[in-house]
């Protein structure tokens, strides 16, 4: 195990976060605050409580999930895509590091970043609406699992992408729509029955539901199902990463 390498890559990536603090941390916080102003204060004041939780507070877990998913994917995909783009990947490939170590350090750094971001957004939200966390352990568990899972997904996208457009494609066309339609801003019980069924095919529903349960004891699906689905995605992405590294897909000719 080349621990020095893992630490070097991890620190390199975290240094990049510090350099791009504005883009990495400040801009998601600002956009989240805007959601609160619009949905929480302006529109939210006219919406009735959802199962005893004020609408402003109800959307907090969903908003955190929204940022967590998009930022995990963005951070991890950029982290591994950029060396490919500039050519500095030669050093990574010629170093005595295993693929597992490469993936662990990039995904670890991206996940760390989005977990921090999630906590900052949570703190920001606390300034606007009263928040209670019913199951702190589960809240942290879902936060960490989701960050790691989607950083892995981002890592895969970063390896797959061979131009900047593709890098944006998946977050834009898949992640964002699925999150908006995944119950971030509403309970799926508010939907007509047909749409409720269709929504159950959206993986993000399980993530948001589980996360919201850890706050307010409110869930669209049982928390065990949420956890199971999260672990399932994690396993799926791990398998894809393992396959990429076994074949050298898009990394080695």
């Amino acid at each position, binding site marked *: 195990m080349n621990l020095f390498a893992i630490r070097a890559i991890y620190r*390199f990536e975290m240094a990049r976060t510090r350099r791009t603090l504005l883009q990495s941390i400040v801009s998601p916080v600002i956009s989240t605050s805007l959601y609160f102003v619009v949905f929480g204060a302006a529109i939210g004041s006219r919406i009735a409580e959802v199962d005893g939780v004020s609408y402003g507070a109800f959307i907090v877990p969903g908003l955190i999930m929204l940022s967590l998913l998009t930022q995990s994917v963005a951070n991890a995909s950029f982290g591994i895509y950029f060396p490919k783009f500039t050519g500095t990947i030669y050093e990574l*490939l010629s*170093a*005595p590091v295993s693929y597992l170590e490469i993936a662990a350090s990039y995904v670890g750094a991206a996940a760390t970043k989005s977990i921090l971001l999630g906590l900052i957004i949570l703190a920001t939200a606390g300034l606007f609406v009263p928040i209670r966390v019913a199951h702190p352990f589960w809240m942290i568990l879902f936060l960490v699992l989701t960050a790691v899972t989607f950083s892995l997904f981002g890592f895969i996208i970063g390896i797959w992408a061979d131009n900047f457009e593709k890098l944006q494609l998946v977050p834009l066309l898949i992640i964002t729509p699925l999150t908006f339609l995944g119950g971030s801003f509403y309970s799926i019980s508010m939907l007509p029955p047909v749409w409720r069924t269709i929504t159950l095919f959206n993986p993000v529903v399980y993530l948001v539901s589980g996360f919201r349960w850890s706050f307010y004891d409110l869930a669209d699906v049982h928390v065990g199902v949420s956890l199971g689905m999260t672990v399932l995605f994690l396993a799926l992405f791990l398998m894809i990463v393992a396959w990429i590294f076994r074949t050298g897909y898009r990394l080695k000719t």
Partner: protein
Amino acid sequence: MQNIISVSGLSKTYASGFQALKSVHLDIRRGEIFALLGPNGAGKTTLISIICGIVNASEGEVLVDGHDIVRDYRAARSKIGLVPQELTTDAFESVWATVSFSRGLFGRRADPAYLEKVLRDLSLWDKKDSRILTLSGGMKRRLLIAKALSHEPQILFLDEPTAGVDVNLRRDMWQLVRSLQAAGVTIILTTHYIDEAEEMADRIGVISRGEIVLVEEKSELMRKLGKKQMTLQLQSPLERIPPGLDAYRLDLSSDGSELTYTYDKQAERTGIIALLRDLNDAEIAFKDLHTTQSSLEDIFVTLLKDAK
């Protein structure tokens, strides 16, 4: 063990169907400077990339200090430093950060004193806190060398180290390579510049169309393939070479003022004395003469012509 790198039966066919290497065999001796010469697209970079782990081989085996580069990649790669052809750097990082990163990546514990020495040797110490994008091209080239040396490798690959580098910097680079060799590092460099190989290398390999055409001690190569020429500046121009001198296969310059005689300096009899005597008999007088020896460049061009 005498050979620090041993390449056997190495082939590479890219997905496009292009065969970059055709069953290459090559041994690099411990402590030598080996120059790999070849035209563009001959397979130089592919060969280096396979040894360093950047490209997968299609067939064949490479041992680095006895370690297989696939099965025992950690041991093999940790002995190698690679300076790539392109100036690829993390533009926003500082010099110090990127050199420290490289050392960590290759599994070495932080050692600021050693890194300071490397940066000082490469005249980069006063730039250690500068961002890479502010460096000149020559400094970036030296930075890539510093990165490659950061983990104290036993083998250094320099892929076209002096491409696009000015004359002074080239001299510095050669100096550096020699001092590295003196410190026990084995150096493999690829180059277009034949004078570079001639200046630096202990042994020379020529690669053409994915095949190693020749591997030879530089001095041996120069001796074997070197031709000498003697040029005579005549007192008065000749219109044509007298028939009696046909056997010498002389060349007459277009203005008739110079005669050139090409001979093999390895031959027992160079024929110079006989030629001079015959010239004297033919009453062809000359006012001066000089001899030239073919450079590695001439040898190289001849070899590639033969390879085709």
